[in-house]
C-alpha cells in the first residue's frame, strides 16, 4: 500500500495529480490524505483529513510514503523507518510561501530511504521499484558529525574569563 500525504496547511495539486497518474499504472493500492486539493483523484481512495490515529495507522502500514518535503513527515518516516518519496513545494507556483522545501530536500535526499521526485514519471519509477530502502534507525553520517563537533566544543571547557 502506498500512502500519500500532503500536509494539512496548503493544497498540493501537482503531487496529487502525479500520484493519480501513477496509481493508474500500478497494481498496488494507494490511499491519500489530500487536504484542500482542488484536483479530484480518479484512481485511488482519499480523505481530505485524517485523525492522528488513522494517519499513524496508514503511515505504519504503507510500503511507501509519498509526500511533500515537510519536516514533520520526514521525522515520522524516520521514526517508523519508512521509504519516502518527496516532492518539494514550489514558492513560485504558490505551493508554499517560499522555496525552503527545495533546500530541505537537498539535504535530506542524502539519507537512506529518501527518494526525490519531480513529477509523475519519477514517482512511477520509485513506486514500481521492488526493493526500496527504508529510513534507518542507525545514526546517519550527519548525526555522527554533529555529535563529534559538540564533543569537541565541550572539551574546550568554559569560556576564558576577561580580566
Amino acid at each position, binding site marked *: 500500500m502506498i500512502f500519500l500525504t500532503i500536509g494539512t496547511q496548503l493544497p498540493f495539486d501537482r503531487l496529487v495529480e502525479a500520484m493519480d497518474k501513477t496509481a493508474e499504472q500500478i497494481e498496488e493500492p494507494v490511499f491519500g490524505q489530500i487536504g484542500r486539493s482542488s484536483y479530484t483523484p480518479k484512481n485511488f481512495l482519499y480523505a481530505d483529513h485524517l485523525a492522528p490515529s488513522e494517519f499513524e495507522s496508514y503511515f505504519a502500514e504503507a510500503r511507501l510514503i509519498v509526500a511533500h518535503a515537510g*519536516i514533520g513527515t520526514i521525522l515520522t518516516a524516520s521514526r517508523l523507518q519508512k521509504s519516502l518519496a518527496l516532492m518539494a513545494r514550489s514558492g513560485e507556483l504558490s505551493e508554499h510561501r517560499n522555496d525552503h522545501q527545495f533546500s530541505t530536500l537537498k539535504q535530506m535526499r542524502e539519507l537512506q530511504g529518501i527518494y526525490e521526485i519531480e513529477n509523475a514519471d519519477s514517482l512511477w519509477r520509485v513506486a514500481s521499484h521492488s526493493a526500496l530502502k527504508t529510513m534507518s534507525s542507525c545514526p546517519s553520517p550527519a548525526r555522527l558529525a554533529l*555529535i563529534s563537533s559538540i564533543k569537541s566544543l*565541550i572539551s574546550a571547557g568554559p569560556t576564558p574569563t576577561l580580566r
Partner: protein
Amino acid sequence: MPQIHVLAIASGGGHWEQLMLLRPAFDNAAVSYVSTSKAHAEHAGIANCILMQDCNQDEPRKLAAGLLQSLRIVRKTKPDVAISTGAAPGLLCLFWARIHGARTIWVDSIANAEKLSLSGRIALRFCTIVITQWRHLANGDRPRYMGSIL
C-alpha cells in the same frame, strides 16, 4: 585534569528527543540534565534530572518564574558548558550560564527548516555557539551548520 561539567537542557517533546540523540557527545563529561517533563527523564533512564517549569514568550509570568528557576539551577550546578536543544527554558539557562562564564551552545531544533527559531535568533545575541541543523540556514559562523540529528 578535572572532568568538564555540562548542563544539558531541553523541554519535553521533540526538543528532548533531539537532546537524547546527542548524548554520545557528553561521554567524556559529567552531565546534569534539566527537563520540563519528569516522564521524559524517567523514560530515558536519567536519574536526578532537574525539573524546570515549562514557559514560553506568550506567558510573561511563567517566563519570569523560569528566569528565577534557571538562575537557581545554574548557581547550584556551576557548569563549565551549557547546551540546549530548546526551547525557552533552555534559553534562560544558557543566559545565566553565559553570565557565569560557561561556554554556551544552542542547537536549533531540526523542526526549524525554514528559518532559525525565535529562541535561536535571541541565542545569536549571547551564546558562544549557535548551531542550525540545516545547511541553507547557516550564516558563516553564526549560526553554524555542524551536522544534524537526521
